[in-house]
């Protein structure tokens, strides 16, 4: 296990309580006696970017900065500043700008400025001589924040919203620099009410129970072998009765439970050396009743000569309402949409079939299709305020096709399923007036059947008579 020694530096960082809600946390370090050449300089820049993008979700959670320590006069203040409250030269620039100007004019300001959107004050590192270090997470200053081949000693800070992510991010940076020959020194970070000494690189402690390991793994490993595997996996392992006392490097953040250690032991052992045992458990297989029922219905519909289709459950309000010539209803609506085409969950199935037909206008007729799929409707009584329903929709289109064609198909399906039903005239503006019926089973409306309104056909750019029905399979499932 690698060990990292830290000395105390005399650098202090004072954290202003005004940062609450803006960027409240920082952890810092000093690394001295670096030997920076062109190669290691580009490596350092790459490392910083990598820390930001992986731990920091592209600077949102974690911003980090590396500064020339010899150009800074500690103590350093981590505080806030008004957008026009100061002027300094940002990295790669030759003139002074205010933070507001940086956001507008500097390439990094334009790239990351949205992260400060809506704030009245911006976070800022500044030293005791009034020299700005940086406006995180946007940009360092040209004077302190530029690391060159001449730089020997650096000050490093990571800032963000929680120590849980900042600590490992800082540790990864400083241990990487130490591996390249630098000497790590700690910094005193003074918060209102508490003081941290960072980085904290002392190895962390953990304990593993040998019996538990053997119970989880199904292996029968000796104490000696387990310790050997642990040492291979960069732990320091010491037996203590039936337990093993462990030390592990501070940069590891992923050890919460003995299971995390057990995985490392098993990886050292070799997954492919372990014999797989297919569990011999007496269980009875079963599918959901609605799936079994849907499957039967599919067979009948295919038997009637129809082609099954499959479409996305996501769609848009235009397809569900406007193009169906009905009033807009309530739907489950997505906030962070990728495309307006897929912004709501479908509430009924017939629009999906019309969309399908509209893409196949020049394919041989007659076209006879069906889909069995789920729709989502709002329902306040449900735990998730929504209810999924399995539906069947059928559509026939040809030069000459009418109500009898579709009602006889519906009839043959329901007779085949042994379901008694009645058709009653209803009003529905997606259909031709007087050519649409509700499908009622035991007095409950289970769907509708009819001839599609030519106005609807026009909206979908369809040119042949079209008839269809939609049926609630969830409610009909025995």
């Amino acid at each position, binding site marked *: 296990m690698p060990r990292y020694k830290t000395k105390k530096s005399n650098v202090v960082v004072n954290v202003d309580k005004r940062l609450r809600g803006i960027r409240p946390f920082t952890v810092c370090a000093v690394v001295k006696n670096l030997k920076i050449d062109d190669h290691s300089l580009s490596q350092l820049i790459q490392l910083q970017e990598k820390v930001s993008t992986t731990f920091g979700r592209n600077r949102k959670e974690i911003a980090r900065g590396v500064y020339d320590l010899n150009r800074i006069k500690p103590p350093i203040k981590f505080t806030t500043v008004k957008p026009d409250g100061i002027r300094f030269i940002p990295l790669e620039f030759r003139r002074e700008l205010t933070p507001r100007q940086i956001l507008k004019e500097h390439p990094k300001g334009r790239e990351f400025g949205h992260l400060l959107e809506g704030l009245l004050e911006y976070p800022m590192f500044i030293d005791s001589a009034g020299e700005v270090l940086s406006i995180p997470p946007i940009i360092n200053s040209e004077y302190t924040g530029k690391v060159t081949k001449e730089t020997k000693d650096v000050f490093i800070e990571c800032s963000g919203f929680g120590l849980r992510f900042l600590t490992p991010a800082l540790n990864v940076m400083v241990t990487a620099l130490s591996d390249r020959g630098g000497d790590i020194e700690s910094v005193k970070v003074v918060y209102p009410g508490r003081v941290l000494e960072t980085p904290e690189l002392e190895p962390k402690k953990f304990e593993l129970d040998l019996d538990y390991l053997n119970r989880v793994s199904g292996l029968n490993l000796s104490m000696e072998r387990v310790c050997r595997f642990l040492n291979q996996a960069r732990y320091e392992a010491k037996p203590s009765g039936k337990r093993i006392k462990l030390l592990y490097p501070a940069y590891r953040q992923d050890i919460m439970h003995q299971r995390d250690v057990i995985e490392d032991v098993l990886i050292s052992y070799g997954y492919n050396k372990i014999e797989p045992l297919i569990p011999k458990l007496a269980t009875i297989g079963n599918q959901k009743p609605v799936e079994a029922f849907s499957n039967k219905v599919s067979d009948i519909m295919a038997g009637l000569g129809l082609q099954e289709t499959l479409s996305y459950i996501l769609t848009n309000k235009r397809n569900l309402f406007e193009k169906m010539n009905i009033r807009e209803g309530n739907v489950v609506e997505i906030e962070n949409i990728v495309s307006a085409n897929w912004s709501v969950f479908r509430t009924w199935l017939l629009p999906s079939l019309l969309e399908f037909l509209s893409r196949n206008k020049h394919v041989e007729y007659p076209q006879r299709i069906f889909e069995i799929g789920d729709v989502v409707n709002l329902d306040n009584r449900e*735990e998730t305020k929504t209810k999924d329903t399995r539906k069947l929709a059928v559509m026939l289109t040809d030069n000459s096709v009418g109500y009898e064609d579709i009602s006889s198909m519906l009839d043959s399906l329901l007779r085949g399923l042994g379901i008694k039903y009645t058709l009653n005239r209803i009003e529905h503006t997606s259909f031709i007036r007087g050519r649409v019926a509700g499908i009622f089973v035991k007095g409950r409306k289970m769907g509708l059947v009819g001839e599609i309104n030519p106005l609807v056909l026009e909206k979908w750019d369809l040119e042949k008579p079209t008839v269809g029905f939609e049926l609630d399979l969830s409610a009909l499932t025995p």
Partner: protein
Amino acid sequence: MSGSIYKLTEEGRRYLENGLPEANLVNSLKEPMDIEDVKARIENFGIALQWAKKKNWVKLESGKLFLVRKPSQVPEHEALRKISTGRRVDGKMIDLLLKRKLIYIEREDVVKRAQKMIGKEIDNLAPELIKTGMWRKAKIKPYNVKVTGKKIYPGKRQPYKHFLTEVRQRLVELGFREMEGPMIETEFWNFDALYQAQDHPSRDWAQTYTLKHPKYGRLPSRGIVSRVKAAHENGWKTGSTGWGYKWDIKKASQLMPRAHTTASSARTLAKLPEIPGKYFAISRCFRPDVIDATHGVEFNQMEGIVIDKSLTFKEMLGVLKMFAIEIGGAKEFRFYADYYPFTEPSVQLSIKHPQMGWIELAGAGIFRPELTEPLGVKEPVIAWGLGIDRLAMFKLNIDDIRELFSKNLDWLRNQRVLI
């Protein structure tokens, strides 16, 4: 009526096959017999007795039936045979058979229509020719039999859906029970109950949709919620350190489109599953991916769990081995260490597919105790997931995932059926 065509009635056809009743009567009469005994043995006894007496083959004396003479042949039977194959029979016999209702005269118009078709080459056989037996005189034109007719499209299942149905069937055969879960989930079931920290980058990495409406759902019983909260904050009684942050109940009640099938596994565990138990789900999942050949608007995930107190890492590998053989059709397979956010330890399965070569087929792991114990499950739970979309694409011979939801009717009509 010399031009008439005669056909056998149903009775005539029966006698042709089984013999005339009077003949059957004399054949069965080896010695004088009590009339009641004979009656029981002979079909249509009344007719049989009437004609046998008339033809003087039998006599009846004091309730007993005596054989007078056994005929060497039965002319009516011979006549029926001739008529049935379109041969001629003399007029007297015709009259007799008509009287006995064993034959009838075919309709004149049918005969006329049939007559028009004979003596020349015709395109198709017609019912008139068959009814009148005149097909014997007709000549049917030979065809070019190499030509198939017009293309027709049978009713068919959607190929991808059909594939999923078959996989579902296979899992049921392997003893798995299907799990339930809604498409719109609370973050609680999609993330928190799976021990995903609320501020953990992986909630971001998973790249999930959020809803504009509806916004919040209801959480399960307070017991489960407080145990999950404790597991996140301090590990509860699971022996874990927990994530060490302040868990927010409001965030947990936010609704979102299900991002993975694992949400259904969490619900199943909380409902206290059968033990031993094997479960699966195939569900539509939603993530705001940029759409390309490998990322669709929606996708299906297949996942499941296996629960029993006897399970260890070896059984976890065993579950994967079973999938390698039963679903992947592979003989060779290998395991690799991998990371999944809900399991520890975790493993990835690659198989040598007979046609595709080495592919990643499945992943599995033992659910973290921080996940299972707050839901009330003490036994080890093996969680597994299978990359079915990839298998489907191979089976359907497509290389763009969007085609699984094809809107091309021509393609669907001409796609071969899954075997």
